[in-house]
């Protein structure tokens, strides 16, 4: 497979997952703001922090002032996260990235999946999306979520299960690890720091985090209805059967990369990426039984995010043509 094409596949996957995660997080935050009696800044500030856009938000809007009203301005934060062309994580940018990568490999993406991507792109540029956004916010996020989920489903059900799809899925999984890790890190810190909160509020917060990761139903099944910070953190980090847990995603990403570059084919490029991902998989697996503490969670998640960052770079260099392959 052509390295440039693989690169587009990989980023196509990352942008789909990023768009879906952003839409899900925003919808969950809207709902949380209604449910929990929390100061608005405690709902909306984590949205900016999780997305990694805190410094841009400060530069553009809030400045050094931690008490700036913008942190709690639901409309302002959502506008920033949805429509802002300069914010690299905005839905607008993610959908543009999704569509641009798909169009660059139009002959690789199946017709049905391409149509789903293109329709979402056209919808975002059309008045219809702005109207829905203004009149029916939840419907807006739902539209984006469904369109991205449809795309992911169509990719798996209409494309050959071989290298291009493996690269797309590798992108989806590595992006998903980041999303879960950041969400958990920010919320775990915020929720466990503030002590003496009413139990009902506490429960609402953890449920909201689970909903933002489409994990509330799955968690309740595993935990038989008991909601605790330790339980939720352990579930999101280690539950091997939950498709958004870090353990699941790291392990699946490793399997995808094994298909792309089998461990025993030593003459093929990609060896360093594979080894690094294998080590991370083993490391996450070994942490499964360790007791959960606030600082432990933060250290684990930081390590995961840093490793994923480096693994993506190594994959780019070894497989995606960041440096051209030498002549045989």
């Amino acid at each position, binding site marked *: *497979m*052509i390295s440039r094409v693989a690169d587009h596949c990989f980023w196509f996957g990352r942008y789909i997952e990023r768009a879906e995660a952003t839409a899900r997080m925003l919808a969950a935050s809207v709902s949380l703001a209604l449910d929990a009696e929390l100061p608005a800044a405690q709902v909306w500030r984590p949205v900016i922090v999780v997305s990694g856009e805190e410094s841009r938000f400060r530069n553009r809007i809030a400045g050094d002032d931690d008490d700036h009203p913008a942190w709690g301005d639901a409309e302002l934060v959502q506008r920033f996260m949805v429509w802002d062309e300069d914010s690299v994580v905005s839905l607008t940018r993610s959908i543009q990235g999704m569509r641009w990568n798909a*169009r*660059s490999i139009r*002959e690789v993406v199946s017709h049905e999946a391409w*149509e789903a991507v293109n329709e979402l792109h056209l919808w975002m540029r059309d008045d219809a999306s702005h109207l829905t956004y203004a009149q029916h916010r939840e419907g807006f996020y739902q539209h984006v979520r469904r369109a991205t989920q449809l795309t992911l489903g169509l990719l798996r059900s209409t494309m050959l299960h071989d290298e291009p799809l493996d*690269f797309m899925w590798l992108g989806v999984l590595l992006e998903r690890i980041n999303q879960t890790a950041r969400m958990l890190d920010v919320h775990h810190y915020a929720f466990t720091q503030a002590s003496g909160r009413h139990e009902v509020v506490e429960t609402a917060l953890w449920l909201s985090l689970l909903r933002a990761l489409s994990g509330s139903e799955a968690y309740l099944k595993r935990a038989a209805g008991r909601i605790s910070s330790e339980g939720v953190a352990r579930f999101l980090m280690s539950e091997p059967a939950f498709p958004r847990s870090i353990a699941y995603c790291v392990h699946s990403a490793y399997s995808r990369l094994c298909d792309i570059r089998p461990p025993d084919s030593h*003459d093929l490029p990609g060896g360093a990426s594979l080894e690094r991902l294998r080590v991370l998989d083993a490391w996450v697996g070994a942490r499964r039984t360790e007791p959960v503490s606030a600082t432990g969670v933060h250290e684990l998640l930081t390590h995961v995010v840093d490793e994923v960052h480096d693994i993506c770079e190594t994959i780019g260099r070894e497989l995606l043509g960041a440096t051209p392959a030498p002549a045989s």
Partner: protein
Amino acid sequence: MVQSQSQSQSQGPGSGLFEGYPPLAGTYDEMFGDGGVARAPFARVAALLAKVAPDELARSQALAETALLHQGVTFSVYGDARGTEKIFPFCLLPRLIAADDFRRLERGLQQRLRALGMFLDDIYGDQKILAAGVVPAEMILGAAGYRPMLRGVKPPGGVRIHISGVDLIRDADGTWRVLEDNLRTPSGVSYVVENRMLSKRMFPRVFDTARVHRVDHYPTRLAETLRSVAPTDASSGDCNAVVLTPGTYNSAYFEHSFLARTMGLELVQAPDLFVDGDKVYCRTTRGPRRVDVIYRRTDEAFLDPEVFRPDSMLGVPGLMRAYAAGNVALANAPGNGVADDKAVYPFVPDMIEFYLSETPILEQVPTYVCLFDDDRKYVLEHLDQMVVKAVDEAGGYGMLMGPQSTAEERDEFRRRIEAEPRRYIAQHRIELSSCPTWISERGAVEPRRVDLRPYILTSREGPWVLPGGLTRVALKRGSYVVNSSQGGGSKDTWVMKDA
């Protein structure tokens, strides 16, 4: 049986949708003959189309345009910073071609392509036709498309014009004439296939009754054509053919990806390829992979910076060395521009007689070559009646439409012709035939002028003509220019099977 009888009796032609259809004076209409009666081979289809209600057609047209936009069947608008893409305007009402007519066109096109191929072999070989004085040597050797460095290079598989799109028009008598040969990188075939899908979706019943030749096997035939010319050391089983595109910002990018997808080939860009030891390789996730055949949709000036444009960063350094060594086939072969030069066009009938000893089957448009003193004198004296074209421009650019021109425009062209006579040819304006065309703004069917671009694939076994083609239509009222860059659109072209 019963059904088709009742259909043909229910409504006469020239009624319904076509009620009050005003044919253009002095123009051949493709569907309706004298007195507004549908031409015999099309009577049944015309009667069925007449029954389509105008608002239903308007709705179908809008639906079809949405479908094209959603599928991304678009071309990029150059110079638009936001990367706007537009659909190629089209009209759902098909252009019909009778079985007998097409059979003759097919024979004529095959004959023409055989002769043009032999001409190119000759020009890049012994140049017998120049020695015989059939075509003036200065005309050929001075052509912008002639590449002296390719003389003596034999293309793998012996084919040079793998893909061509020959533009045909019909004059006031209904006589088919070749307007120009496109032997380099003709585009538009993806619209032929896409327009057909729309026809079938929007007019299933009419289409079913009409008995039309299919066009959706074009990509399969193209893939076979490409494989047939693989260099001898590539066994056909694992022949690696690729489509080379300049990239997503090219206006025809949709077509490049369409062809790659429908042939199941990789779509590559120049940086994906490299040359080592006069062999071409592709950079892949599993290391270098050999490439045998390249269907290149890039201009030949940007193929290889070592040869054509030393100042250019575009292209694949060493590609022409690999080609000259016979290690990679390029479709179409570089150097073809010498044969579709508009000033060489008037000599194609002579080529057919010289190489094939046959009488040309297809008529041409009488052409004045400004390089010749007598021709130039005539052209300059009759500028207000002539269509003047630059020999090396396309897309409707660099053209003077004499009868519609201003005195200033004519003076400008007079100066240009006198300065560079080799660059210009002139023809009398042909009253292009017209087709009933749905005009959305007016909510009515009106005649608009059309041309036809059939596609011809030439493999080792010889030329094959796709039974269909791109009908381009001048959507602006009174216009003779069908190019998409100048307000042209397209129609599906229905080549009828024998009755």
